[in-house]
């Protein structure tokens, strides 16, 4: 990729973000402006802001890369990310807004009148928020390294962290709302315009359609340089010309016929594939930093893994702290519902694009499967397919959009985490402490991302969804619809459900227990941890009937009554 265009594009996105944020700052005056934009954000602006915040690096780059490597099964990710909003709309949206709370811990306290549950919910918000921030910062580093050869890995993360902290600390929710809405349209444009040109180029090419068949194949002779060592899993024998080391033996330009089975390729090896060769599947050794990849476990238990993914994304969305905090900015419950419908439309429209990149990537850049660089597919395709100055310009547009993705998701998460830190951890309230909370909210994940640079951060995204689905989803759904929920039940459910999901994924990340059915169970915990969370919450609540908070009936009335009946009730 030509950095002559991409670097100015990234700089322009950062500059535009700061300018739009400054515009919001001019009209951001009170504490209420800071936390919830004074609750006056209309459905259309708010929907664009929610979508802009939600479409993270994993959506912008990761999905196309995953589809390229693992095929159409991975399209369950965007479907799940979208359907999560439908589930949120059905059970949570309007009552959550009517609860009148600022954050998830506020909701827990309002519903259960318990400081202990409030603190537990706050801890989960901070944990999930930091887990989700980590891949955003690392993804920013990756993108900057891809467009600007020689940039250190941590530079992109630091740029994102500084810009986001400055905007959030200066303008709070009001200016963030404008920034997010702006970035939704920026991201859509950055994927849509190059996609149109790519599809035109594909049609001029005679519209080859074998990308939809399994597996992908090379369209022309292609030399692939394997950066890090990897294992090739061959279903059928493969003929390839090798410069380097395969299975421990050094070759210099020999044509090899590898029998079916697993072969180890050392780093630095060049493989030359002939036209029409099927792209072999890479085993362990390919780390896609942005994509929640669990290639091995998917092969072992594909159906179980697919259902685990569906459950985690469908139920996890409602508990993501940066998503939930947005609903408090709607003026009333009816607007919160309509906003959610608009969000579904906007997100659905966006998710039509990554599959296009994934499919074209299978056609024009299938070797990315082997180089362990599949997340860069979206960034590399314009140059590969169109080429020339046009390809460079389109590539720069995509790079700018990718940076917008990191900036917007990171600012929403920072906002949510900073809100909790300010209200529950730092001593007194007020705008000054909110700014201190913002710095703290960003400093921890930034430090972690620099320290644990090599960690497969994609797992952090999956972990965030699984933990949120098994802790906040039961709390919200039962809290809103079930009047017998008690504080001990809520605390036990969050600890058992969210805690076990957290431990399960942490165990998989640490490499335990390697293979077999246990591995799949631990790598995709949502299928058992979500029911476990619900069940624990219900059973413990039923066992402690005396602890039902006295004000439950009037709290539930406030959640569910339309605003026009509210004045006297809440008084």
């Amino acid at each position: 990729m030509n950095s002559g265009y991409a670097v100015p594009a990234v700089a322009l996105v950062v500059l535009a973000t700061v300018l739009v944020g400054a515009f919001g700052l001019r009209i951001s005056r009170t504490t209420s402006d800071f936390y919830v934009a004074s609750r006056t954000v209309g459905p259309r602006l708010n929907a664009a802001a929610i979508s802009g915040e939600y479409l993270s690096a994993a959506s912008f780059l990761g999905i196309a890369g995953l589809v390229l490597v693992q095929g159409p099964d991975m399209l369950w990710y965007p479907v799940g990310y979208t359907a999560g909003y439908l589930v949120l709309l059905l059970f949570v949206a309007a009552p959550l807004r009517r609860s009148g709370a600022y954050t998830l811990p506020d909701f827990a306290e309002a519903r259960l009148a318990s400081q202990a549950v409030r603190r537990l919910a706050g801890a989960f918000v901070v944990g999930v928020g930091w887990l989700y921030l980590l891949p955003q910062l690392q993804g920013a580093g990756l993108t900057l390294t891809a467009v600007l050869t020689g940039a250190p890995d941590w530079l992109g993360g630091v740029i994102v962290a500084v810009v986001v902290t400055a905007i959030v600390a200066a303008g709070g929710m009001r200016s963030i709302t404008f920034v997010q809405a702006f970035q939704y349209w920026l991201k859509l444009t950055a994927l849509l315009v190059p996609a149109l040109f790519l599809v035109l180029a594909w049609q001029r090419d005679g519209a080859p359609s074998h990308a939809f068949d399994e597996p992908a194949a090379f369209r022309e002779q292609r030399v692939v340089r394997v950066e890090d060592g990897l294992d090739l899993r061959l279903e059928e024998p493969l003929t390839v010309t090798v410069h380097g080391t395969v299975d421990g033996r050094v070759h210099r330009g020999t044509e090899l016929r590898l029998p079916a089975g697993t072969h180890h390729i050392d780093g630095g090896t060049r493989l030359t594939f002939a036209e029409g060769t099927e792209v072999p599947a890479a085993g362990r050794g390919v780390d896609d930093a942005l994509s929640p990849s669990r290639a091995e476990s998917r092969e072992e238990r594909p159906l179980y893994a697919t259902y685990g993914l569906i459950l985690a994304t469908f139920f996890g969305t409602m508990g993501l702290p940066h998503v939930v905090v947005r609903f408090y900015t709607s003026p009333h419950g009816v607007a919160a519902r309509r906003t959610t419908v608009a969000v579904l439309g906007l997100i659905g429209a966006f998710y039509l694009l990554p599959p296009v990149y994934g499919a074209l990537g299978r056609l024009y850049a299938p070797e990315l499967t082997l180089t362990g660089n599949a997340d860069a597919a979206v960034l590399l395709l314009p140059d590969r397919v169109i080429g020339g100055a046009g390809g460079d310009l389109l590539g720069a547009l995509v790079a700018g959009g990718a940076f917008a993705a990191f900036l917007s998701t990171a600012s929403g998460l920072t906002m949510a985490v900073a809100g909790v830190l300010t209200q529950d951890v730092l001593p007194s309230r007020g705008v000054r402490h909110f700014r201190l909370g913002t710095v703290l909210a960003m400093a921890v994940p930034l430090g972690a991302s620099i320290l644990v640079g090599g960690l497969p951060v994609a797992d952090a995204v999956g972990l965030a969804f699984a933990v949120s689905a098994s802790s906040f989803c039961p709390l919200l759904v039962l809290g809103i619809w079930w009047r017998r929920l008690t504080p001990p039940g809520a605390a036990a459910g969050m600890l058992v459900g969210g805690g076990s999901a957290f431990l399960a994924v942490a165990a998989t990340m640490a490499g335990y227990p390697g293979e077999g059915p246990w591995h799949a169970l631990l790598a995709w915990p949502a299928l058992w941890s979500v029911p476990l969370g619900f069940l624990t919450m219900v059973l413990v609540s039923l066992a402690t009937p005396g602890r039902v908070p006295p004000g439950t009936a009037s709290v539930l009335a406030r959640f569910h009554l339309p605003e026009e009946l509210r004045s006297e009730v809440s008084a």
Partner: protein
Amino acid sequence: MPQDPTERRVVVTGPPRRALPHARLRSRGWYPHAFGYYRPRTEIDEQTTLGHTYVRSLMRIQLRAGLTVFAVLALLVGPLPLVFAAAPDARRLEWAVLGFGLYPPLVLLARWYVRRAERNERDFVRLVEDR
């Protein structure tokens, strides 16, 4: 035929005003006919047992709306992985359904639910305001 004017006023003004919403609301699960001639709005405001019963009926009908749409979603999405696993050759179908086909039904389901939930709330307001 009652001769006393006050008694007659009670009989005539009450039922005709409420007859229309009653029949329609009852068919959707409301049971306001049990509440006689009390003013429901006051009951809710004063948080009496009767008022809580009103809120409970609103919650029940809203939960039913949510669960109905959720059931449709589960029936729509649930069998898909099985179908794709059973027909590994239908790759193009999988691309089409997961890449494009599922998003319009999701938006339509959302719009359907919002319309239903808002209608439930309007009916409830009309009921308790005694209009």
